[in-house]
């Protein structure tokens, strides 16, 4: 089937999935037995007259049967009305979109780090299979995901911010996206919302360096979540590739091992890693909730965490839908890229 037809088919399927997510999310918000749906929309502790409560109920169509409510809900969603979050004191969709670039920058860097660190580690483990480096790499990477992330965060802060600082060594910042004093001295005009990109576009080097430094610790903590699987997949893939005939051919031609590995084996072995990079992003979005809280990173994850403490179901549910939508789009993008690359995919 043609490329366009394939894309359209994937688009339709993924829309169906999003619809399914919206049903699940709607059910959580309005349909849970024993939970009064109105509670999510009122700030606890405020005096509210019964009249105000009733008019709110009508406004939210809570007196109608669930399918009707769902219609209004979907209608609202499609028009950009995702409800009002009392945690963010703004509309849910706006609140999430405003904070999205911060999370994307963090998650993206984390994926990058996990690949930059995980790929070489996986290669080494494959090349020295079952010997000490292999065991070491596997233990270290497994250790990485066995830590509770928030625990890891505080340890990173302790070591790289506090202790290094105490010893007078250059140290990394433990909170925020950028040094506030630098931001005041060298203000940034937000264009994309990605600090690294915007500061480079504007030639604002002090801001760039500060933002980069602030990315290191949180991105590293987040990257550990996926690093073990990157290492594992890379190792397995590498082992598979190394057994192929063309590798044997290259070696028999007399090419040195390093060239063989890098020019031939690596390029072929790395594909599965890149496939999973897409789904890894989704896992990282979940982990970002914790990392952003520990490192005071103003992204969507931190907002969601605050929403939970505040019992702001409208926000939490909106966040769920938002993240699902992003995952779906990423999956679509990966599928499309595959379709471009490999015609066999478009069955």
């Amino acid at each position, binding site marked *: 089937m043609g490329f366009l037809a394939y894309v359209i088919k994937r688009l339709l*399927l993924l829309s*169906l*999935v*999003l619809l*399914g*997510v919206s*049903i*699940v*999310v709607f059910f*959580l*918000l309005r349909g*849970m037995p024993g*939970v009064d749906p109105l509670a999510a929309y009122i700030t606890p502790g405020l005096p509210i007259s019964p009249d105000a409560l009733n008019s709110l109920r009508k406004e939210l169509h809570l007196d109608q049967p669930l399918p009707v409510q769902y219609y209004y809900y979907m209608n609202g969603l499609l028009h950009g009305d995702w409800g009002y979050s009392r945690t963010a004191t703004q509309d849910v969709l706006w609140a999430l979109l405003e904070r999205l670039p911060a999370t994307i920058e963090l998650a993206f860097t984390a994926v990058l780090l996990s690949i930059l660190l995980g790929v070489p580690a996986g290669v080494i483990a494959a090349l020295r299979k079952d010997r000490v480096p292999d*065991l070491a790499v*596997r*233990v270290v990477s*497994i*250790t990485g*995901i*066995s*830590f*509770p*992330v*928030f*625990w890891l965060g*505080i340890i990173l802060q302790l070591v790289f911010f506090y202790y290094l600082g105490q010893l007078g060594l250059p140290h990394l910042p433990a909170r925020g996206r950028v040094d506030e004093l630098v931001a005041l001295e060298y203000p940034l005009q937000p264009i994309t919302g990605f600090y690294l990109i915007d500061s480079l576009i504007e030639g604002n080097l002090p801001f760039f360096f500060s933002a980069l430094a602030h990315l290191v610790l949180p991105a590293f903590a987040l990257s550990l979540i996926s690093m*073990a699987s990157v290492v*594992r997949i890379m190792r*397995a*893939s590498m*082992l*598979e590739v190394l057994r192929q005939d063309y590798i044997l051919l290259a070696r028999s031609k007399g090419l040195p091992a390093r060239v063989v590995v890098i020019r031939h084996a690596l390029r072929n072995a790395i594909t*599965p890693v890149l496939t999973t990079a897409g789904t890894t992003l*989704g*896992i990282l*979005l*979940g*982990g970002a*909730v*914790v990392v952003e*809280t520990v490192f005071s990173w103003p992204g969507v994850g931190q907002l*969601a*965490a605050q929403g*939970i*403490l505040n*019992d702001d*179901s409208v926000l*939490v*549910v909106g*966040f*769920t839908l938002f*993240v*699902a939508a992003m*995952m*779906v789009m990423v*999956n679509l993008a990966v599928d499309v890229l595959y379709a471009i690359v490999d015609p066999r995919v478009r069955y």
Partner: protein
Amino acid sequence: MTWVRRNKLAAAGLLIFVAIVVVGAIAPLAISASVVRNVQFADKLTAPDATHWFGTDDYGRDLFSMVLLAANLDLRAALSVVVAAVAIGVVIGALAGFIERLDEPLMRVTDVFLSIPSLVLAMAIASVLGRSIQNLSIALVFVSWPIYCRLMRGQVLIEKRKPYVRALTTLGVGHMRMIFRHIIPNTLAPVVARAPADVGLILITMAALSYIGFGPGPYVPEWGSLVAAGQAYIFQAPWLVVFPGAAIFITSLSLNLVGDWARDAFDPRLRS
């Protein structure tokens, strides 16, 4: 024993995990549950010593007892979540793989759950259901079953084409019997490959949920909520975070070591 020699890591992991399970099983018998309610403010936040091997927490309770009681609760919860998720996922996946008509709709449903990152979905469910270990477990089951479903379906699709299945169909064996008596037992490999590591993942996720604020409260000993509660005292009383955190870490590590071996051993397909 050659197995042990060949797979040192996995063997070590298995040994550690079994030890933890034994400890967790004995704990409620050896330690009285009243420890949880035993508040001694004067004793609070004391460092580990001869009477309190892990020190005391912010309620003055013996941390060693709390960590051991939590072992029981956490292991039971994590294991039951994985068992439930596997059961549900395997059945649905087998149905989807074997019965053509059910494949598309069931896979779409699975996709829906797969598009939501686990922590996020668990958060959403728990925020609506309320905080308790049972609700957390329910949320985590919802989050974990789709992977097993997918794995199972993939395996069944392949298995379906094997000669013995066709033979049995000609003999008149019904769908249900075919699925449950023949197909599932032969295709459990990838599921077994994945499950141990999953238990560790569930433990970590429960800890993360407690940190965010979904913990079951101070009267339910659970490793994650012990660590989350200890965060506030991390400089005054680091043992509050170190010991329960180490428990999570060691359990999860041992499971991952076993899981790593399981993956390599049971599912060569996963390598590509």
